[in-house]
């Protein structure tokens, strides 16, 4: 895939997303790869909230709103139905947030991967329950404040490792991505679309409203997440993990933290401890 070949067609437009919303960007990029031959399942999350109130209809492909905990099961049912109708060519896509994936929807996701049906489950991760007002989720990183982990009681547990969780299901294909690396993301979506089985893509989607940075810095913040090592771009395929992008220069995590309101309360020694942990994991 080359950037100049990316479709100019916008199959998702006119949402009520916040300025600088990377989750909206993730939907657009996904549809640029998959095109009109795809259907979307969107559970309770920011995207359904900013897209799915009648008579608004920003999706130009078929989509359904789904109950919070039910994305994986809906993907199975739809995929089974299309299989019965000889339409396995249609991409069945789940578009769920971090809470909908790692918390309330994790059981259904586990069952869905286990079922073996063909679908692409995309977790767009803005690291908290944003549409209900920035409450912590299982994917809120250690050290972040949210409306349910206010300073000084910041989130005291690490982000759940969804990649290892889905890999433990022996999933045929899984990947992490970030909206600040669109080509890398789109290549992974394309790869997933060619797998005849369950696939999972976890895309980090910086949230200006919830993370506390100006909307024009969304792309920059995503890059900082990857350059600092707070987020890694990788694939899981054939039972192996593989890093798909290694930053040319390593950025101190302090710079990433300083750029966002949610980490401002962290003391120097706490930041240094996080930095040491990142360095040790490399």
């Amino acid at each position, binding site marked *: 895939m080359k950037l100049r070949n990316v479709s100019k067609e916008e199959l998702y437009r006119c949402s009520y997303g916040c300025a600088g919303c990377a989750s909206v960007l993730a939907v657009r990029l996904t549809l640029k790869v998959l095109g*009109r*031959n*795809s*259907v979307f*399942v969107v559970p309770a999350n920011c995207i*359904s909230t900013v*897209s*799915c*109130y*009648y*008579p608004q*209809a920003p*999706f*130009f*492909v*078929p*989509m*359904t*709103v*789904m*109950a919070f*905990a*039910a994305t*994986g*099961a*809906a*993907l*199975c*049912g*739809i*995929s*089974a*139905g*299309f*299989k*019965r*109708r000889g*339409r396995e060519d*249609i991409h069945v896509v789940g578009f769920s947030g971090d809470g909908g994936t790692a918390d309330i929807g994790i*059981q*259904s996701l*586990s*069952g*869905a991967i*286990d*079922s073996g*049906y063909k679908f692409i489950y995309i977790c767009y991760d803005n690291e908290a329950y944003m549409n209900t007002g920035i409450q912590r989720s299982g994917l809120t990183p250690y050290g972040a404040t949210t409306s349910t982990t206010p300073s000084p009681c910041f989130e005291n547990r690490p982000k759940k490792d969804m990649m290892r969780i889905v890999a433990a299901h022996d999933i045929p294909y899984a990947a992490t991505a970030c909206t600040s690396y669109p080509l890398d993301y789109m290549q992974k979506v394309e790869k997933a679309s060619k797998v005849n089985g369950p696939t999972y893509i976890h895309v980090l989607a910086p949230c200006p409203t919830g993370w506390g940075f100006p909307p024009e810095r969304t792309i920059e913040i995503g890059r900082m997440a990857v350059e600092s090592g707070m987020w890694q771009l990788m694939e899981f395929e054939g039972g192996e993990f593989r890093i798909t992008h290694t930053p040319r220069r390593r950025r101190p995590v302090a710079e990433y933290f300083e750029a966002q309101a949610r980490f401002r309360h962290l003391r120097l020694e706490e930041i240094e401890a996080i930095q040491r942990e990142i360095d040790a994991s490399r």
Partner: protein
Amino acid sequence: MPGKAPVKKYITANEAVAHAARLARVEVIAAYPITPQTSIVEKLASFIASGEMDADFIKVESEHSALTACMGARMAGVRAFTSTSSQGLEYMHEMLAYSSGGRYPLVMANVCRSVALPWSIWGDQQDAIQQRDTGWIQLFTETAQEALDMVLQAYRIAEDHRILLPVMICLDGFIQSHTEELVEIPDQESVDAFLPPYDPVVTLDVDDPHSISVGGFGKHYAAWRKEQQEAAERAKEVIVEVGDEFARIFGRHYGGLIEAYRIEGAQAVLLTMGALVGTAREVVDEMRAEGKAVGLIKVRAFRPFPAEELRQALSQVKAAAVLDRDCSYGYEGALATDLKAALYGLANPPAVLGFIGGLGGADVPPERMRYMLERALSVKKGAPSSAEFIDL
């Protein structure tokens, strides 16, 4: 009757329900094990394994997912089936309301069982009754044959474009689910003549994209809910219509929303739902033979509620004894409450005596039914009633 002669077999109601799903040409099954439902989906799995049925069996990890997967199959334009009981039905609760509000024509068999705590795997109807307000059409059956026949009818009712609501066929745990009866299994040709292929109104169609099952503010939300209520009310006619057509093809008729049994000139009438109707029939026969003016009403449709039919049937009756296998704690049995509401405003309404029994699989022997009818015969017109637990 078209087609070859139907097969008669001694089978349980669970097996009968599995035959119905097979004959309905269900293409997607998603189910999770729970007693006393499990033998339905085991049988369906064996039909698929032996090639008697061509369907996908989705191995889900919970009932919540089972119902969701069935909804997903419907979104893809394919007929689906699931069944459950008790805790499983409760675990589905969110998706019950979700699917009815989304107007998905799902069909599910619920093998009625008590709910925990206290733990009990045995039968009563608390599970189904607790889902009363989720927007599902709830039809109760008495026999294995009726369970089979009603699953077939349920697909016609649910998928009717005037209705588009999910239908729950209730059968009583163990009394029906695990008891063999002689059942006539219809032939495929006759079922095909009765039940045409699924004709969905809207699907996830890439050539005609729609956002479906979306949200609505204020007036839109209210307008859709009013449409849902109108469809549920309309279902009263469609249930009767489908039952009549079924009778024309298969020769079995169950009486529409209610079946009134020997209520001509009755002073006291017993009302109940499900398998206990069988015992009640015998008790009414015995008491009639003794010259006592008693009758029976089998309530087949719990939602939509047959208020008008009950008003008419009970307009000349002195007292109605209601046997509920459920309790709305802090009030009374649900059927008793709904009956009283239906009778409100009637010039000369019967007294309503509420009884709660058959809980947690407790046997309700004929003498208990006789007791309820005797109480109703001796009650003073309009006398207040309460929820009396008859198992103790």
